[in-house]
């Protein structure tokens, strides 16, 4: 059987590996449009601060990993002929498939403002981008970061530690609005400001003027900031253009999939940032665009590509961990809470510590934390285990830090 994987990010690589395990006699072709060996975008921030070299970002360290069972080839997928079950590459090559996986990830969207296509503007998404940024970053350089979302915040540290003069511009009213609630988003802003970062929230970039020695970023409220480098991190969109014309249904800008990670067209599956998959918490389908989800998708898609219907996706839990100049924030599941559910929180502004738990009846369904790292994964255990907490719910309401205790009580009757 021939499997074709389009996109060699984490979702694609894990899918390819899983297929090889399940169906050792198969042929797996993995097509990727980036020149580098499969790497992890997540590792880019650590490359920027020089903690690792480019090799350190590679998903698989063994240079021969993709030489055997998996055939990794360079190419840009352009279209799919569903009838013929053929993938067309931009260079004219055609590859037949029996099952195809769209693990093409997502790409940054540039905000539609004049001057955004100028030379001093870059995204921070690929190794190529990283090279460009490292070349410009130096102590004293003025840098403007558009967007204080997840990606923006995660590269903040690298920008700050390079000694650059950083200004962050966020449209929303707080930092990481899609991951942190008001309290923690505000606290994170305060943290960044104390670290010398100029953070503007509820601010909009109106235009970018390009001069020979610098760019000037014009911001709502008649504010102007000079910049040697402008990094745009203002949201992403799935890469699914090559599926146009196949009849594959889209949802939230990504490929709509069922619980077998299969699209509306039999034989075409999707995984990772490119897929709109099942969310464990809400039961709805959404694009989570995080690494662990990509990996889980990849595995489940692979199992179903080998034997359709063999694994039913239970939904991925939306989870994020973010280190912003040393302050670690975490979010899980339905941190916004649900109607009729209880919630509890504990805030220590002076020490930048915060925890917020959301319950539905006596089950934990979501959480937000700031400055807490020990045993943090237990939040996942509690949420995804769907434990009825009984009397421990009240204990958690009184002291939300007793998470481990609550978990042990629920699982071991301690």
């Amino acid at each position, binding site marked *: 059987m021939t499997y074709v994987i389009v996109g060699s990010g984490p979702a694609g690589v894990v899918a390819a590996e899983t297929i090889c395990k399940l169906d050792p006699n198969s042929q797996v072709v993995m097509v990727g449009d980036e020149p580098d060996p499969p790497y992890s975008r997540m590792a880019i921030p*650590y490359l920027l601060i020089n903690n690792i070299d480019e090799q*350190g970002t590679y998903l698989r360290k063994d240079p021969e990993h993709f030489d055997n069972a998996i055939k990794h080839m360079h190419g840009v997928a352009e279209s799919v002929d569903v009838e013929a079950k053929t993938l067309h590459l931009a260079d004219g090559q055609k590859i037949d498939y029996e099952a195809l996986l769209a693990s093409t990830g997502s790409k940054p969207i540039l905000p539609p403002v004049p001057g955004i296509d100028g030379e001093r503007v870059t995204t921070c998404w690929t190794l190529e981008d990283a090279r460009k940024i490292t070349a410009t970053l130096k102590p004293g350089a003025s840098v403007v970061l558009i967007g204080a979302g997840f990606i923006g915040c995660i590269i903040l540290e690298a920008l700050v530690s390079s000694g650059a003069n950083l200004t962050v511009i966020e449209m929303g009213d707080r930092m990481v609005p899609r991951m942190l609630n008001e309290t923690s988003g505000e606290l994170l802003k305060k943290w960044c400001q104390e670290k010398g970062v100029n953070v503007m929230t509820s601010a909009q970039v109106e235009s970018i003027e390009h001069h020979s020695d610098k760019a000037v970023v014009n911001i709502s409220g008649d504010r102007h900031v000079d910049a040697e480098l402008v990094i745009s991190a203002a949201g992403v969109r799935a890469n699914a253009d090559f599926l146009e014309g196949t009849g594959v249904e889209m949802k939230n800008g990504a490929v709509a999939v069922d619980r077998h990670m299969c699209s509306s067209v039999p034989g075409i599956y999707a995984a990772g940032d490119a897929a709109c998959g099942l969310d464990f918490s809400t039961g709805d389908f959404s694009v989570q665009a995080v690494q*662990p989800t990509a990996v889980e998708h990849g595995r489940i898609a*692979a199992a179903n590509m080998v034997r359709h219907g063999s694994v039913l996706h239970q939904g991925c839990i939306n989870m994020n961990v973010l280190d912003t100049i040393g302050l*670690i924030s975490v979010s899980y599941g339905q941190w916004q809470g649900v109607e009729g559910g209880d919630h509890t929180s504990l805030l220590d502004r002076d020490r930048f510590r915060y925890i917020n738990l959301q319950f539905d009846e006596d089950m934990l369904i979501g959480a937000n934390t700031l400055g807490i790292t020990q045993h943090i994964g237990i939040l996942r255990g509690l949420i995804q285990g769907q*434990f009825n907490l*009984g009397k421990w719910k009240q204990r958690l309401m009184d002291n939300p830090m007793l998470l481990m*205790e609550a978990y042990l009580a629920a699982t071991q*009757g301690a």
Partner: protein
Amino acid sequence: MRLALFPCLPADLRILYNRVFQSSKPECLFVIISFDTHANLCHNTLHSISKFDLINDQGLVHQIGDKQMLRSLNINPDKCTGCLQCEMACSFENEGVFNPAKSRIKIFTFHEEGRFVPYTCTQCDEAWCLHACPVEAIKMNRETGAMEVLDSVCVGCKVCTIACPFGTVNYNQTTGKVIKCDLCGGDPQCAAACPTEAITYVDADATGLEKMRAWAAKTDNQAHVN
């Protein structure tokens, strides 16, 4: 024999237990396993029966029969006195200092209940932490079965710390890397230091069986646990 594991609730584990241990000729089993019921717990138990593949609800695939006999930490909270000798032994072995704050094993105290519960990584067969790592910094040690963090590869992204649903990978802010139990390379110091045998290092099969029995018993009285 081929075995597939699908999602279910802890209570269904009883069925598994009965099916596996009470049927004279276990053949093809479709066993259901919930998110939390420790995939490895079933692995360890079923391991002794025959070679099979396992697919769980995470789409994890594993050839159990290939795995050699391994040993694992067996923890018996009833015996624990909360002395923290294990925490010190662990931090000393791994960090060179007596420092419970940096121990991979942790004792949780239930003051009102008068109970101490030692807790550390269970070395899942298909480890969440390992799969979540974006740079292959967590690998299984073939000899001990332990999931080990390769310090030189770990970038400190902390994704494993939120992915492990048991909360047993922790970020060490001082080093910028994560830390987790590595079974001390096959000579667990916590077990050696424990004065009460609350922690012992035993054949994995034995712990699997014992845990399975404990779970089976527990599903009976789950209702009054809380």
